[in-house]
């Protein structure tokens, strides 16, 4: 795993930084999760494709927390199974507490996937989890088009002209996520 320039260059928090990883690595990493959670944000709404990817993951049994106003996209597609609106700040506040009961009442999660969230907001929430959700350790990844040093693994920065490649990566990611 290499590292690169954070999408917001000064997002350099300290000695503990996560690495850049390709989709299949992140996908197989997720496969080891006991209770994963997909957290999606408003940037998903810029293209139906991204919603569909989330739904595919949802259909693999990964519950979805829809933050920002992303829930809209799912409602419009009629996907309402295992998906919950949550404010991201409030959600992270719950995730940092090992005793939180989770969206379904069955307890907190051990693995969180960030997807479609404004870079700096996601980065700060990942920072909270990195620093405070340590006992037990919560693993975090991002599948956004940004390098996120506060996540354990994330994609590289992907500029708009590489949108198709990004979409391919997401597909690859979905297919390598086994549950």
């Amino acid at each position: 795993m290499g590292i690169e320039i954070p999408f917001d260059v000064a997002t350099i928090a300290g000695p503990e930084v996560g690495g850049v990883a390709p989709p299949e690595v992140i996908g197989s990493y997720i496969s080891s999760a006991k209770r994963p959670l997909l957290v999606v944000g408003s940037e998903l709404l810029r293209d139906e494709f991204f919603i569909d990817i989330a739904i595919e993951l949802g259909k693999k049994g990964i519950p979805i927390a829809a933050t920002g106003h992303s829930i809209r996209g799912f409602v419009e597609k009629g996907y309402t199974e295992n998906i919950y609106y949550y404010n991201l700040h409030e959600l992270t506040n719950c995730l940092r507490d090992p005793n939180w009961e989770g969206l379904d009442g069955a307890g907190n999660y051990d693995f969180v996937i960030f997807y479609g969230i404004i870079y700096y907001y996601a980065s700060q929430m990942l920072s909270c989890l990195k620093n405070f959700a340590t006992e037990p350790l919560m693993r975090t990844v991002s599948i956004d088009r940004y390098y996120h040093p506060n996540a354990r693994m994330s994609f590289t920065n992907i500029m708009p002209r590489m949108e198709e490649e990004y979409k391919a990566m997401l597909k690859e990611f979905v297919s390598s996520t086994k549950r």
Partner: protein
Amino acid sequence: MEEIKKGGLVDLFDLKNVDIHIGEIVDEGEEEEEWEPMGPHPMPRMATLRDWDFKLLNRYKPFYAPVCDMCCLCTYGKCDLSGNKKGACGIKMDAQQGRMVLLACLVGCSAHCGHGRHLLHDMINKFGRNVPIDFGPEVDIEAPLTRLVCGIKPKTIGDYEQVFSYVEEQIVQLTDALHTGQEGSYMDFESKALHMGMLDSLNKEAADIIQIACYKMPTSLPGGGPDVPLVDVGIGTMNTDNAVIIVIGHNVPPAADIGVYLTENDLEDKVDLGGICCTSIDTTRVYHKAKVTAALGRQLRVLRAGIADVVVIDEQCIRADVLELCQRVHSPMIATNDKAMHGLVDRTDDDPDKIVDDLVSGRVPGVIILEPDQVGEVAVRTALEMDKKRRSLKFILSDDEFKYYVNDCVLCGSCTLACPNGLYIGEANKSAAAGNIKPLADLFDICVGCGRCEQVCKKHIPIVDMMTKAAYPQLKEEKGRMRVGRGPIWDSEIRVVGAPIVLGTIPGIIAPIGCGNYPNGTKDAWLIVKEFAERNYIVTLTGCMAIDCALWKDEDGKTLYEKHHGGFDGGGVLNIGSCVSNAHIHDAAIKVASIFAGRPLRGNYEEIADYILSRVGACGVAWGAMSQKAASIATGFNRLGVPAVVGPHGVKYRRAFMSRPDIKEDWKLIDASDGSDVYVEPGPQDLLVACETVEEALPMMAKLCFRPSDTDRGRSVKLTHYIDLNLKYLHTYPSDWHLFVRAASDLPIATRNELLKKLEDERDWKIDWKKKRIEEGPIRAYNPSFNPTNLERLIRGKK
């Protein structure tokens, strides 16, 4: 020796060759005692209100998202605190974050205190300390925060010396706690931050009261309050055929002096006086021909556009590179405040002829004039001269330059990585190169005008100027209207709306305040105001949001200020004033407790805050919150029991205050009527929370207006808007609306059946359909005589 004037605190400055001698203070009688008996906590010290703070902090547990995993505050460090490790001094990451929050609040609070104290010195110099504090027939409680916190009823501006002395002492005590080797508990850092926030609210009230009193800014005298006039807002309103002076900052005396000079010399139509940030707002409160050129986000672009023949800065929110920017477009600069001197030479008391000559000739890029009453003449005369010299200069890119640059861009993406909003500038350039400038023009409003992008562009593309060029046609049309800052809410208004607010039938007070670090442009500010004003909330604005929301118009070409009334009543859109004016929003809440509910005010902070937290459905929104002041402002609101929503950049403040509705024990209140414990719904759910998008923020703000004291009618109004805003912006019902239902009567009549059905189906609540009653389900039953409090001492009778 000059006689030392009455006031208790002696002005020890500027005594040159004068002996300081303090004699005896003679008691003049008990006159002050009459207005109200002293409450339990006048002039609270650092630990005085700690119990209250801990009540808040236990419900709204500090949440930390570090911006940095290290600490670099002493030479034991840097220390790596990641994973909540301890630094060399033993501090853990959580406490360190609390410390950084206290630091931010310190700087914010000191900015207002420093400004207020400075203003007071200048005003006493100019007007003497006996300027009466009298806000007209509709305002009896002239200074609610001063009465509440200090136990003082100020009669003249001189009375504020003791207020600032109190605040200054407390600030230093709190700063002491920042030193390496003090607090080890984040809870205590946060209690101190809350204390700092409260002091800050007091500062703001003091500063605004002083300037209102001295400059006769709008109050409840004719032409004030709801009837304040409208002024021009926007770059497009600047008449560049005139000489143009731009004032920037927060401290109005120098700008006021410019206004006086223009008026006295009949130059009002020859010189345009425009401003940026709060000074501009306050200038319009003093000099009605002034214009509000822009809020913070446009500062860099206004300066770079070169429209200013003179730039006058005072303090706060001034770009640190202002001198360099001025030099680039040959705008002479006048610094007027010892806090922002920019390495220039101090020319206070120097001959104006010489100063003007030095500035106009370009011998010096700028000067310092610390005496506000010396600024007007120099600024105006320089502007008139410079106007002639600068007429031929052009600072907007030519078409050819623009074309050259868009083609030169190599789409390297460096600018995007440097941009706080991650704007894809390269792509917009590419599109412009291909003939479509719209993407670039569209970035203009989303850009926060920071200039970070340009510094990293290897092709030296003047990105900021490129956006300005692309958006130039819109920009020329940026012509809005805004009410002049009205200052205090009238007691008479409170008498009218107190009950509707507490009972919930006016669904809430929404207070958009603060800076322009928006995630997606100024239009969000407009949308927030529009949405709530149309729903009969009271919308009270200050600072940059008050400006930015005025830039946009509806289909009829009307701004929100033109569309809505300016009274403190449902549907009102009030420009309260500059940042310091937002104390009047605290004051309104305090006056509800005092005037409507008759709670004692004097030195009684804890009880009033407890009242507000449980009963006054108010919610601040600092959608572009950026500065340390915004941090202390929000924290001050929080201690008083008022929640605030911030935009996504707000997560970089590191700390939020959110509750856990799922933890029942956190929601135990006391019924003061009989001392019984009552478990309540989460109202307000958070004290400080960030939303990702404005679409998310709108329903969130509606939610944060719920209060345990809501009557059923009030609750049904609030629920209506909460659900409706969810449906409108999130396209779904909120997942937690049922938490706020205590009885069927809490449900809006129009949709009551439908909602009861949902409760039955989705939540398994038991509904008695005949009686249209809820039999089982709610957290608690609705009890109209419930008297919620967090304070045991307020229990009136034991059950």
